[in-house]
């Protein structure tokens, strides 16, 4: 680039400058997401119908642990998503560690459960949980995509992964309140696999999706 052209470019950009409002702090930006996403999942849970034994489940340590881990993943991945939506992550790169660590704990814990309780792998076919799970994650995922696009991510694939983790975890929690099947096999095939597939597709398209 010649000096002259660089000067022209800089002058052009400076001429185009309009006042901009800096994005709010990520913790503030994520609050409406959690409020709306939780209301949406809760509404869908009541629309689909609470599982009949939900009262007993709050005394079931295994169910509580599963729900707690997924809840933590949803919150931490949501927060990581919104930090990832600005180029320097506001210097808080550690925010991607909690969701990844918790996902690892969830995987190890599910493996131990499968070893002790049995996997009880269902026949691989489309069941209602798959469709309901996708519906439960759809609106949170869409909100996250719009939120990220209002920023400028420099890590589109990681951002997309955190998005699907947050939205998928919310959908998974919703399914734990509606689906009576507690086996690891069913949870993996019918509750998790759809999110993995959607996440893989979005991951491929992440760079185009979050292009700026």
């Amino acid at each position, binding site marked *: *680039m*010649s000096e002259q*052209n*660089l000067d*022209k*470019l*800089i*002058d*052009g*950009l*400076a*001429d*185009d*400058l*309009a*006042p*901009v*409002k*800096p*994005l709010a*702090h990520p913790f503030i930006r994520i609050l409406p997401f959690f409020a709306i996403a939780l209301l949406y999942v809760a509404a869908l849970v009541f629309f689909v119908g609470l599982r009949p034994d939900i009262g007993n489940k709050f005394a079931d340590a295994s169910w509580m642990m599963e729900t707690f881990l997924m809840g933590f993943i949803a919150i931490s991945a949501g927060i990581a998503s919104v930090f990832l*939506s*600005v*180029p*320097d*992550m*506001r*210097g808080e790169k550690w925010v991607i560690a909690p969701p990844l660590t918790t996902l690892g704990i969830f995987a190890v814990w599910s493996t131990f459960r499968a070893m002790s309780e049995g996997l009880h792998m269902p026949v691989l076919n489309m069941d209602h949980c798959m469709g309901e799970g996708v519906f439960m994650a759809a609106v949170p995922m869409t909100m996250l995509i719009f939120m990220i696009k209002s*920023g*400028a991510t*420099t*890590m589109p694939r990681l951002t997309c992964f955190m998005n699907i983790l947050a939205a998928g975890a919310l959908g998974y929690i919703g399914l734990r309140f509606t689906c009576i099947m507690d086996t690891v096999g069913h949870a993996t095939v019918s509750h998790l696999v759809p999110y993995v597939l959607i996440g893989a597709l979005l991951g491929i398209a992440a760079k185009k999706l979050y292009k*700026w």
Partner: protein
Amino acid sequence: MKSPSNNNAQKTQSELWTEYAGLAQAGDKTAYNALLREIAPFIRNYILKSLANPDWADDISQEVLISVHKSLNTYSPDRPFRPWLMAIVNFRRTDYLRKHYNARENKQTTLDDFDFQKAHVTNPTHAGEYKDIETALDTLPDNQRKVFEMIKIKGYTAKEVANEMGMSVSAVKVSAHRSMAKLKAILG
């Protein structure tokens, strides 16, 4: 509107950029112009060390400046400017190199292929010239090539291209001009 303060000599480069960026967000064109002029050589020198071809540094610097312009709202005035800028610089450099090497692969599979020539080139005796032009066009970054093709080949106006590409009219003109100069240099 607040202007850059006069005690700039006492400030470090980083503090100065941070101040300019804050003022630019408020719409201060003078501060913004000064910021872009300060960071342009810094960006070029920083990326130059990691590139095989020094010409790429100019293209990447240009893309970084445009990216800074597009994403100015994502800079947080309570944070130092430099880490924010470096994140953009590294992102654009990686993106540019990835596109460049992908494009090189495409080049190897087009006019070198005799079946392709037979199917797509109407006058095979001129295939060498077509290939030269294609090769020269392939050296342009994707966005720059698209801008060039829209203006010089398809006949769109700079304003139409600016709307389509989400760029300013002046940036489009500069991009087209630069592309033409680069093609002339390559094709002789």
